[in-house]
């Protein structure tokens, strides 16, 4: 047994208060460290505590709140706490998925930052035994006229594309916002969905003593040292100095790693497996040991190294990409080694599990680290930070908001704005068809990938509306969950579960903590009402520069199941002469709408309320209609309201429409109001009455919103706007913006 007594620490610089502060530990946290060790730490130990107790790894500000999220449901196989969440898809198969942020690295080096973000989230998924089958990305950039925006868009999109394209996993969708609130803190959130057999899911608990700990993948270099602490610190004007910590991704090696790991997983060889993500070797080894209730000893001389003279500190903190740590069954070593060699990857036994309960790290014959695993992992500080909830603004009534001179011109401006223009320029750079199972490509409400070899479809979407969240975090949190649920429903899927990526400012400020708390309450309420649990997620705090925080951005990634893809629905109008119906309550809510923002530069009023009972009732009804084959196209109403939704359906189907306006509200409120829980559907002429009657039986609001046909959009025959004009406005904004140097 190695104890603290036999410890020798070479060239240990004296641990000064400055050094401790540089490692992001406050005085109280450092005292806790001293109490655990019963002595001063070595430099490597200080580094290890620093990353393990960073916000990024320890969730110290958010843990308390995250416990409020509902995480259980009949089909949940694994909720939060593992590398990714696992949901049962029936027939012995499971979806494994998660979303993660790579915000700070992407701002510093957009191409590599975004690429390694994709690499990291894919590792989280295949670590658990799943073959990645779809990637998504949720992106927030600064205002279009901010000098950095164009460069960041181009780098981030190329980085995401090149990484996923090379591996051969389709990037099937996402979302993109431009807003001044992200000028100096962009958000790059990547989501990966994988498919596994339910009896072949792998976890990270390293149970049992004396098992070999194996390192596979790329060699270790000095990349990204302090990445985890960087992701937990606010930016200031010296952030440029943090540049050398940027990691470079190697998608080809990741592809080899996916294949080799999946091949090994077909054998009976693995006790525990964990990717080396943030805080690399440190967090992977500590987490496996902690979950398995064992100790772990590592010998760094055996770690494959890319650079010479690396110190223990550097090796333990390196964030070199494309590496995994595996605890093997003892007799599986040769088999495992043969597989990794076949794929041309490094394979090294670097330690073993022990009964000591301690993390022992040796380097060049010296014990550099000797820390009790349980206390390192579980005594991370947990803060109940003070918070001040955001006071929601008052509701605006439609009458308080002016009408535009011409409704059609207002539509054209909206759909040709940075908020609503086509994202084709982005997704055409992503291989969204590889694997030959993408049955609904980007551009619709949710992407759908066929579950290979079956008739089932997995629908995937990501959503959040940050301007709603800023005005009212609680309502914004609800809305984000509800919008994913709606988008899944609109393609005919039964929503199953979500992952979240909670991007906020500095949690040490009570108003930011209040945003966080509000958003959690909203998300939790929506998940409960919709029976739609959270199975994985990620928190990214300190997204602020010089005291200016991003708008609260709890991005939600949802997945849903379509039993037979023959029942999949799309938003394109299918034929002329069909009846357009609007389902859901219409109130003409213009507070925080894009109409208000784009036309009047105003962001005021309360965001549209989300009535969760109404949400569920309308959604369930629409899904039933889809399954029965009663409707021909479906689209939810979201940003921009009804007029935009119908324009998008018309553009997708290249068929015009004549809209019918009701009398009870001003026309602009009907057309541009962003009331939640609404769907636009089309039915063949004879079927409208039946559908309306069925909805009325359920006490759902439904009305005829128009008829399809022609090559224009008109309002009760007035104010025509040609599809061509709409298409030009919608298609051109992004390519034109990106072509300017």
């Amino acid at each position, binding site marked *: 047994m190695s104890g603290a007594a036999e410890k020798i620490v070479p060239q240990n610089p004296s641990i000064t208060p400055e050094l401790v502060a540089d490692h992001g530990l406050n005085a109280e946290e450092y005292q806790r460290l001293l109490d655990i060790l019963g002595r001063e730490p070595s430099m490597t130990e200080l580094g290890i505590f620093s990353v393990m107790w960073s916000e990024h790894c320890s969730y110290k500000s958010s843990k308390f709140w995250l416990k409020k999220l509902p995480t259980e449901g009949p089909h949940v196989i694994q909720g939060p706490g593992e590398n990714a969440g696992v949901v049962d898809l029936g027939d012995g198969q499971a979806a494994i998925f998660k979303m993660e942020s790579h915000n700070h690295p992407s701002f510093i080096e957009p191409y590599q930052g975004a690429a390694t973000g994709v690499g990291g989230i894919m590792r989280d998924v295949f670590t658990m035994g799943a073959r990645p089958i779809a990637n998504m990305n949720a992106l927030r950039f600064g205002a279009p006229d901010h000098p950095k925006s164009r460069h960041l868009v181009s780098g981030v999109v190329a980085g995401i594309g090149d990484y996923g394209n090379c591996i051969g996993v389709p990037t099937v969708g996402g979302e993109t916002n431009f807003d001044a609130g992200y000028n100096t803190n962009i958000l790059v959130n990547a989501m990966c969905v994988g498919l596994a057999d339910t009896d072949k899911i792998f976890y990270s608990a390293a149970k049992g003593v004396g098992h070999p700990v194996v390192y596979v993948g790329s060699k270790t270099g000095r990349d990204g040292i302090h990445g985890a602490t960087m992701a937990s610190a606010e930016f200031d004007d010296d952030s440029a100095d943090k540049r050398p910590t940027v990691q470079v991704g*190697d998608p*080809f090696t990741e592809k080899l790693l996916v294949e080799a790991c999946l091949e090994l997983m077909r054998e009976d060889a693995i006790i525990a497996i964990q990717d080396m993500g943030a805080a690399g070797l440190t967090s992977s080894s500590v987490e496996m040991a902690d979950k398995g209730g064992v100790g772990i000893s590592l010998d760094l001389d055996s770690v494959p190294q890319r650079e010479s003279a690396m110190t223990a500190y550097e090796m333990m903190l390196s964030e070199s990409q494309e590496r995994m740590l595996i605890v093997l069954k003892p007799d599986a070593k040769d088999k495992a080694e043969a597989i990794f060699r076949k794929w041309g990857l490094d394979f090294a036994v670097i330690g073993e599990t022990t009964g000591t309960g301690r993390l022992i790290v040796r380097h060049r014959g010296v014990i550099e680290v000797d820390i009790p695993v349980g206390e390192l992992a579980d005594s991370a500080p947990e803060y109940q930070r003070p918070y001040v909830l955001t006071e929601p603004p008052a509701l605006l009534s439609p009458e308080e908001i002016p009408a535009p001179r011409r409704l059609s011109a207002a539509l054209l401006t909206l759909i040709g704005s940075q908020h609503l223009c086509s994202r084709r320029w982005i997704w055409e750079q992503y291989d969204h068809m590889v694997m030959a199972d993408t049955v609904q490509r980007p551009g619709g409400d949710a992407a759908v990938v066929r579950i290979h070899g079956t008739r089932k479809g997995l629908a995937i979407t990501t959503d959040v509306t940050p301007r709603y969240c800023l005005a009212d975090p609680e309502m914004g949190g609800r809305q984000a969950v509800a919008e994913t649920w709606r988008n899944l429903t609109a393609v005919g899927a039964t929503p199953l579960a979500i992952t979240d990526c909670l991007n906020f400012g500095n949690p040490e400020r009570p108003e930011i903590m209040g945003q966080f708390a509000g958003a959690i309450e909203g998300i939790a309420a929506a998940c409960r009402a919709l029976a739609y649990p959270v199975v994985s997620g990620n928190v990214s705090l300190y997204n602020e520069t010089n005291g200016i925080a991003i708008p609260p951005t709890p991005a939600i990634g949802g997945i849903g199941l379509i039993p037979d893809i023959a029942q999949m629905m799309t938003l394109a109008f299918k034929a002329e002469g069909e009846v357009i119906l609007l389902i859901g309550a219409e109130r003409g809510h213009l507070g925080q709408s894009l109409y208000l923002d784009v036309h009047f530069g105003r962001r005021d009023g309360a965001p549209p309320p989300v009535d969760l009972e109404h949400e569920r009732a309308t959604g369930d009804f629409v899904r039933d209609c889809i399954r029965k084959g009663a409707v021909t196209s479906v689209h939810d109403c979201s940003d921009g309201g009804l007029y935009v939704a119908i324009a998008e359906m018309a553009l997708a189907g290249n068929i015009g429409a004549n809209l019918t306006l009701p009398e009870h509200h001003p026309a602009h409120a009907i057309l541009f109001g962003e009331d939640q829980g609404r769907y636009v559907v089309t039915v063949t002429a004879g079927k409208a009455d039946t559908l309306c009657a069925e909805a009325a039986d359920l006490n759902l609001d439904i009305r005829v919103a128009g008829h399809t046909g022609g090559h224009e959009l008109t309002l009760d025959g007035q104010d025509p706007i040609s599809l061509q004009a709409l298409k030009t406005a919608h298609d051109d904004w992004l390519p034109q913006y990106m072509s300017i140097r």
Partner: protein
Amino acid sequence: MKARIKVTLKDGVLDPQGKAIANALGGLGFEGIEDVRQGKYIEVELAESDPDKARSQVTKMCEELLANMVIENFSFVLETA
């Protein structure tokens, strides 16, 4: 005036391309390949004929566009036609 510019990765930055080339050379039977690093080589033909002005122009080009200063270094020579 012509600028011949080399853009190379900073030390310690992973070079997947170099690594792949080294492997491929090994596979082709070349022995004793110890390390390969890949960079870019760019030739820019300039109207500028004053060497000092050209030098500062090219430096600016490298910093602003040709090299990614986060992970790359550059160097160049100027040549009169």
